[in-house]
């Protein structure tokens, strides 16, 4: 079955490689910038969105939640470089994220390094780890590749749980020692800085993925997704290109780990679980693989639901329902799982396809109006 290469995700032409047609064509390059500016000034808004967030936009709780969402938006975008754009189904991407989280935490808390050194070492280490493991795992393809990466991630999970030398804190996790951190990153009042940090990470990932996808290398990656054998016959070594994508994605994930470690101020074995990789896949598909904004939106939405559904489950609305409804609904995972299944059905191309799916509807609406105009 190994030759049945994992089916590439629903074909999506990389945005970067297709010219735009719309009348907004000229403005489109600036849309991401505008979005970034809007996101950056969110903490200045006291807007209250009841039901959406617990407090006003600038409250620490909301900013913390948003920061977590943004990190995962970035993580999903990085994972999409593998899955959506190169067609590699890795089940072990959480490993590099976890390496980032634990690397930072251990270097700061146990080794007492300053943040910038810890971050630098961690990202370098995470990238090298991805390169080494990728070099081995990429000798296989398809489902076998997925399983080897899963196995490597499983080793990571076991090592963290074994708590060698008391480094990782085992199943209890390792709270981050904030004594050595810049004070701007410590304390609830400074949550806004963590938010900006997370936003910067997201922007960085999106920019890198965008640049790489639109580069000559990105073109090769897109080709690999369709037909690896053909790439070889064109004179390019598929292995090298896949390894580059794998390493890059791993490096981006470990950078995400650094940020996440700061945002939640600690490491816990949750981040080594294979469920995390699965949820990355969920995020990407929810958003739309191979698109620029899909995975980002998917990551943000997934994390948002994951956090907010716990509140939903205990809300009065749910509690007032009859038991056969309120019991399942009070289980966040039940709601998340159900939402997810519905999403697969009703948004097959992910959120990113929403626009094109709505398009015929809009056209039909416009047509159905008498042609007054």
């Amino acid at each position, binding site marked *: *079955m*190994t*030759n*049945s290469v*994992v*089916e590439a*995700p*629903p074909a999506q032409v990389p945005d970067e490689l297709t010219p735009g047609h719309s009348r907004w064509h000229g403005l489109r390059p600036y849309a991401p910038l505008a979005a970034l500016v809007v996101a950056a000034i969110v903490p200045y808004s006291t807007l209250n969105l009841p039901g959406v967030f617990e407090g006003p936009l600038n409250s620490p709780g909301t900013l913390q939640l948003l920061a977590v969402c943004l990190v995962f938006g970035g993580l999903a975008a990085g994972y999409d470089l593998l899955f959506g754009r190169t067609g590699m*189904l890795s089940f072990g991407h959480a490993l590099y994220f976890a390496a980032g989280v634990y690397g930072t935490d251990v270097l700061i808390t146990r080794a007492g390094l300053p943040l910038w050194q810890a971050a630098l070492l961690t990202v370098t280490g995470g990238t090298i780890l991805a390169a080494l493991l990728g070099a*081995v795992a990429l*000798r*296989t*393809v398809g*489902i*076998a590749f997925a*399983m*080897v990466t*899963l*196995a*490597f991630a*499983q*080793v990571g999970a*076991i090592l963290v749980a*074994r708590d060698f030398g008391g480094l990782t804190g085992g199943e209890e996790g390792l709270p981050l020692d904030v004594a050595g951190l810049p004070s701007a990153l410590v304390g609830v009042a400074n949550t806004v800085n963590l938010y900006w940090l997370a936003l910067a990470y997201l922007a960085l990932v999106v920019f890198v993925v965008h640049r790489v996808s639109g580069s000559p290398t990105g073109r090769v990656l897109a080709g690999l997704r369709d037909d690896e054998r053909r790439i070889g016959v064109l004179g390019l070594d598929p292995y090298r290109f896949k390894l580059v994508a794998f390493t890059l994605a791993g490096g981006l994930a470990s950078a995400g780990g650094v940020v996440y470690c700061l945002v939640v101020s600690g490491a816990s074995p949750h981040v080594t679980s*294979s469920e995390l990789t*699965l949820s990355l*896949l*969920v995020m990407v*598909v929810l958003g739309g693989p191979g698109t620029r904004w899909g995975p980002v939106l998917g990551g943000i939405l997934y994390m948002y639901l994951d956090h907010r559904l716990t509140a939903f489950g205990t809300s009065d609305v749910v509690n007032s329902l009859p038991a056969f409804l309120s*019991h*399942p609904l*009070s*289980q*966040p*995972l*039940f*709601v*998340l*799982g*159900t939402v*997810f*299944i519905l999403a*697969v*059905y009703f948004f*097959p191309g992910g959120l990113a396809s929403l626009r094109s799916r709505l398009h015929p509807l809009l056209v039909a609406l416009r047509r159905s109006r008498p042609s007054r105009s």
Partner: protein
Amino acid sequence: MSTVILLALTGLGLAALYFLVASGLSLVFGLADVLNFAHGLFLGVGAYATWWAAGNLPGAGPSGFGFVVAVAFGVLAGAVVAVLVELVLIRPLYSRTIEQVLVTVGLSLAGVALLQATWGADARPFPRPAWTREVTSVLGANVPNAGLLLIIAAVLVLGGLLAFLRFTRYGLIIRAGVENREMVTALGIDVRKAFTLVFAIGGAAAALAGALGGVYFGTVSPGQGGSLLIFAFIVVVIGGMGSVVGSAYAAVAVGLLQQFVNYYGTSGLGDLCVVGLLAVVLLLRPQGLAGKVAHA
């Protein structure tokens, strides 16, 4: 000597459990090409249904023939749930492999949460005949009867599955359908029925594993299926995707390796060795130990 026998037999018991879980997974994966993450849910359904039946179903009970009835009910429940899942969730997505994986992931999240919402997060004592708690002395080693029960069940399941694939037309239809559904239809065959059948068998096998796992563990809890699943995946992959015989070999290798390394090496090394074995097998033989079920 008796230690080695004890380790070997308990290792085989563990292997049997892995195989029971893996067989359904392997079948559904190899034949219907669905990487079924909801397999753990079928397992849980089987276990809880057996548990429920033993306490509530007339004629069923925790021992003797009543226990057989309870297990039969559990297996039936597993098969029914699997069929429903196939009909409602998987069928509309055929040939969209990734989406199917995603739906089963969603299902495993939601389903386990549903079990938990209904019966609580805590482990419940599992009804089981008294003899399954006892041991049988084999050459001086006290081998748990529950393990022996698992070994017997695993051998029966292996035989049954092979017979199904080798001697029925369904085996053929399913294998062809995996490759090209359209063309099977174009030969005048209703391929959907065959796939539903595969799910039913996979669900029944999982439910049996759940019920016997309950006997073995002595308890049933919502998350039990999930934790077994990761080893089952490893077994399926080492054995060669879709090869039931391969899964059997792999289960034995994994069970024995784990048991012996845990005893003679430091603990926890067993798990690492199993993962190492997986990596080595895949790098040397990416298709797994055995080929596809076609040649089983």
